[in-house]
């Protein structure tokens, strides 16, 4: 089995120096996918013809000294809610099993124009919400650190394919934590950008006022490179912010000296039960940032349960609105988990939804006030290490408040970084959260942490 080099940025430097061939890189990724996918189920569809065509084009540019940039020739995967022209886009669901779009999602097109090589479509929870499910046309993805374990969701295949070193980056989507969860449980970096920074055109929706597209990769620097290629105004997406995309790489090496960082300690130490490794990981992140020159203090936000209540009522209402016609007509074609979650969502009334949106505005005001004298926040990314994949409850996300959905509610950028390893050698992660459209500062802090620690040297397989 051919192993890919460590990380996207490192590989890009080798491509630029003509020390590695994009065609060989694509073949390596396809070989590795063929070997590992029967165990990990990271991809529900490989796209070898497209990959070889894109790799040959990248190699021609390499030979001509005309590379488009650091993503040229880089093997990637797209979550199977991102529409791909001529290639089925199923949402990992029987409902869209035969759906072949005639267009690429804006982000798919943007990455292709930057030269990426599409290895395949990655597994997801059904329509980015229902999983892990064993009654769908494709099995759920498994965690490369231990294939008996859950990857986190919903960007399950993105997490598995990057952690396994099959691809060097992947698209994810994040409505309540679907990028940051898999990044945490699979030991990766993943950023939910500011709401409105990246286009959602051509991405199957879950909940319109919360949905965000973003990348998952091995390092924060890799995420910055991928995010730069997908950020920017898209007139076709009503949620897209009509403002220039921020410079996401210019200050990446700038460090955190003088930055003011607030730990939301009550989120992960009082409001919910978290594992010792998760709590130690947040402390480790804060200690390293402090050693790098940041000023770290504690900050108090409203209880996590308030964010949880508002967030899930909004998510469920909006998801029900998206799925209502199919739910009425094709109820039993959904997998059991999504079918029952959507039926539960049908119980949320219009008044419930608007009360949640009113509370959301208040929560946004509270977080903004709490950050008046802070640049960044930190807290855990998930409560525990990855559980066994067959022991995830049907209504898992409702049983205990999650640590990620607060920042879908507020629209802030939030990055997961790997902060170490806990029980069973499974990775744990923590979040770094910024103010809206200050995604670059979030990436800068995450990169500073990775640069000062050695966690990126340990691989799953």
């Amino acid at each position, binding site marked *: 089995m051919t192993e890919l080099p460590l990380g996207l940025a490192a590989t890009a430097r080798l491509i630029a120096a003509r020390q590695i061939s994009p065609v060989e890189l694509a073949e390596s990724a396809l070989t590795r996918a063929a070997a590992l996918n029967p165990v990990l189920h990271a991809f529900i569809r490989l796209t070898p013809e497209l990959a070889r065509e894109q790799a040959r084009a990248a190699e021609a540019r390499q030979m001509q000294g005309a590379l488009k940039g650091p993503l040229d020739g880089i093997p990637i995967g797209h979550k199977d809610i991102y529409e791909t022209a001529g290639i089925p886009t199923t949402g990992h669901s029987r409902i869209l099993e035969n759906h072949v779009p005639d267009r690429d999602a804006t982000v798919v097109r943007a990455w292709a124009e930057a030269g990426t090589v599409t290895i395949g479509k990655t597994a997801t929870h059904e329509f980015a919400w229902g999983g892990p499910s064993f009654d769908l046309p494709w099995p759920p993805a498994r965690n490369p650190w231990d294939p008996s374990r859950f990857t986190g969701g919903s960007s399950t295949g993105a997490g598995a394919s990057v952690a396994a070193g099959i691809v060097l980056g992947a698209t994810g989507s994040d409505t309540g934590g679907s990028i940051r969860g898999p990044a945490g449980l699979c030991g990766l970096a993943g950023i939910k950008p500011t709401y409105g920074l990246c286009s959602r055109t051509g991405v199957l929706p879950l909940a319109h006022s919360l949905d965000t597209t973003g990348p998952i990769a091995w390092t924060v620097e890799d995420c910055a490179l991928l995010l730069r290629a997908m950020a920017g105004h898209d007139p076709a997406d009503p949620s897209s912010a009509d403002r220039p995309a921020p410079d996401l790489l210019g200050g990446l090496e700038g460090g955190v000296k003088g930055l003011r960082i607030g730990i939301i300690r009550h989120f992960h130490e009082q409001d919910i039960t978290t594992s010792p490794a998760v709590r130690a990981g947040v402390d480790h992140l804060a200690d390293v940032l402090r050693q790098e020159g940041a000023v770290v203090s504690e900050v108090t936000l409203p209880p996590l349960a308030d964010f*949880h*209540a508002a967030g899930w009522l909004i998510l469920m209402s909006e998801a029900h609105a998206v799925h209502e016609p199919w739910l009425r007509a094709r*109820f039993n074609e959904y997998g059991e988990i999504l079918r029952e979650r959507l039926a539960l969502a*049908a*119980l949320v009334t219009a008044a419930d939804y608007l009360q949640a949106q*009113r509370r959301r*505005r208040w929560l946004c005001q509270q977080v903004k006030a709490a950050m008046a004298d802070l640049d960044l926040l930190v807290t855990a990314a998930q409560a525990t290490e990855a559980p066994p994949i067959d022991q995830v409850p049907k209504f898992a996300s409702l*049983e205990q408040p999650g640590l990620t959905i607060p920042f879908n509610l507020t629209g802030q950028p939030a990055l997961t970084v790997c902060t170490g390893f806990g029980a069973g050698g499974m990775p744990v992660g923590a979040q770094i959260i910024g103010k809206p459209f200050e995604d670059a500062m979030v990436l800068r802090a995450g990169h500073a942490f990775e640069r000062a620690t050695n966690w990126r040297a340990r691989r799953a397989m």
Partner: protein
Amino acid sequence: MPEPMPEKLFDALIAHAGLVLTPAQRASILNASRHLTAATERLRPQDQVALEPATVFRP
């Protein structure tokens, strides 16, 4: 944790949504409705009567 939603209300809302559940599905979803009850109770009452939702339209 609160009780599940009252059964009559549950059945009415499921019927309103146009769904027909098996007894097993009904039991599972009715039991999970306690999570909704907890969430909706947490959001009422709003302290500020004039608080606008986060969806206010801006032309």
